[in-house]
């Protein structure tokens, strides 16, 4: 269960091996928290969250002894949408579940390596997993609003569950529902059960729920696979909107979707990163023959 401490080989990442990483931080000029003072980096003023860059360094994930993610180095840039594509069972879901430390909730599962949220390694021993999940939200494959709660309570749940209560709860719920493009449809029936909405509305409700806690990053694990094309389109438009304030990582089986929403796309195969680059590059002139075979539909 306990994630293994990062081994020495990942703490001293060769700066020349990833010159891009170093430049990225200085160019964007975001605040760089002092390494070690993790609480400072994770404690944020509600409503003022800004997108953050996430970097995976030598990330490995295990189920028992089985290694599902085999050492991935990957960067998700702030205010960008990064799509993760790859055939079933390649480890893409496992990988994004490592980014908010949900992977370790599965009995017997653990992760190794580092996941940096700006400069903070979220697998550091001093980091509170609860604080990590407040900073990095998640939307799941199947829409899963809390069945006992109303639409309002579902969105407020994010705030209540994380122990943050404010007098402006109503305003926060409204703002989250507006950001999720759902306010117009539900403003008259906030007291009705969330489970009574259509599938697409439920998924946008779940997005509103995760937005309400002001995350810097949102992970989406095939968010549209249970939705019809029209609901899918709405979510995709929403993703386009949301990247202004958060970093988005989206796992998808649908390559058209990746092409539509993602700024960059990463292709994963057998638990390893095959290629990452601008979405258009990946789909039109990939450098790796395996990527080409996959995006042209020769396998997967």
């Amino acid at each position, binding site marked *: 269960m306990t994630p293994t401490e990062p081994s020495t080989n990942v703490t001293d990442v060769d700066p020349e091996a990833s010159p891009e990483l170093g430049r990225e931080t200085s160019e964007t000029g975001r605040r760089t928290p002092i390494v070690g003072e993790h609480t400072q980096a994770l404690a944020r003023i509600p409503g003022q969250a800004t997108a953050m860059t996430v970097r995976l360094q030598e990330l490995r994930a295990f189920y028992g002894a089985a290694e599902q993610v085999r050492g991935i180095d990957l960067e998700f840039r702030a205010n960008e949408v990064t799509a993760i594509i790859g055939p079933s069972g390649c480890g893409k879901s496992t990988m994004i579940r490592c980014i*908010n430390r*949900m992977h370790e*909730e599965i*009995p017997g599962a653990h992760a190794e390596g580092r996941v940096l949220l700006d400069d903070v390694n979220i697998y550091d021993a001093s980091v509170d997993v*609860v*604080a990590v*999940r*407040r900073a990095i*939200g*998640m939307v*799941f494959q*199947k829409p*899963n609003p*809390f*069945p*006992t*709660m109303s639409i309002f309570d579902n969105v407020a*749940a*994010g705030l*209540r*569950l*994380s*122990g943050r209560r404010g007098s402006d709860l109503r305003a926060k719920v409204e703002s989250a529902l507006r950001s999720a493009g759902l306010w117009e449809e539900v403003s008259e029936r906030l007291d009705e059960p969330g*489970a009574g909405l259509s599938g697409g509305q439920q998924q946008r409700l*779940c997005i509103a*729920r*995760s937005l309400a*806690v002001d995350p810097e990053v949102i992970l989406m694990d095939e968010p549209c696979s249970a939705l019809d094309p029209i609901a899918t389109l709405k979510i995709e438009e929403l993703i386009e909107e949301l990247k202004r304030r958060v970093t988005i990582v989206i796992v998808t089986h649908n390559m058209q979707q990746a092409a539509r929403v993602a700024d960059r796309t990463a292709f994963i195969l057998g638990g390893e990163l095959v290629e990452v680059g601008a979405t258009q590059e990946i789909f039109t002139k990939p450098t790796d023959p395996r990527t080409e075979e996959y995006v042209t539909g020769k396998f997967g």
Partner: protein
Amino acid sequence: MSAAGATPDRLARFAVSPRRRRRDNLARAGILGATLIALVPLVLIIYYLLTKGLGAWSSSFFTTDPTGNTFFKNSSIGGIKSAILGTIEIVALASAISVPIGIGVAIWLVEYGRDSWFAQVVRFFVDVLTGVPSIIFGLFVYIVLIVGTGSTYAGYKGAIALSLLMLPVVIRSAEVVLLLVPDSLRESALALGAPRWRMIFSVVLPTALPGMVTGVLLAIARAAGETAPLLFTAGATLKSGFNLSGFMNSLPIQIYGDVTSPTASVEQRAWGAALTLVAMILALNLIARLIARRSRLA
């Protein structure tokens, strides 16, 4: 249909053979017969309870204590007020003991213990406890709390015996319902940054609540009808009261005492008390079913 040009020969290929039809009828008759046989005792029990018990029911039957006067024809034998009150009190105390502990154990098993070796051991012992005959719980309390302390019968001792009986039922039913709560709800609560305890209290328990209430009511219904655990723990008495450290009457014990009486009117009181007990348990079962129907889980 058949007339669409197919020859009788070709239709015969798809016809049910007489042999299979015979076997089918035989099997259907067999299982219907088994069902009817099983219904016979049930119907007879309800028939006797109603015909013999309803005659004993009257307003004074529920509002007076038994007098203990069973030999003189002209004197009143009294009702079963102390037995009804005693059963309610003992079962209420037994529930107050077993429900919080049982649900606590179930939460631990599902949310924390999971498949650890200790959780497996706990599950094994809970299963063993489920199979223990009810008189053993009475005997255990008798040895520990009556012989062991050199004291005598008391209502609360009966309640403890019943709570031991209820505990495994509460644990098992609550565990099953908690397992029905989809993991996706737990994950989305955790992914919102909820600490585990808050996830359990705000998401898992409200979702599982109707099912858990049903399980608890069924456990109560089972305990309310038990005689053996009360025989030598709560004792038997005529007077109703609210002192749980004194002797306390209960419906099963009242029935047990009355049914062995040679006096016809006392025997009839046993039927009346039995009907009362069955009506109370039936009411609990109905409530449990209503709540289960409103549950949001399958």
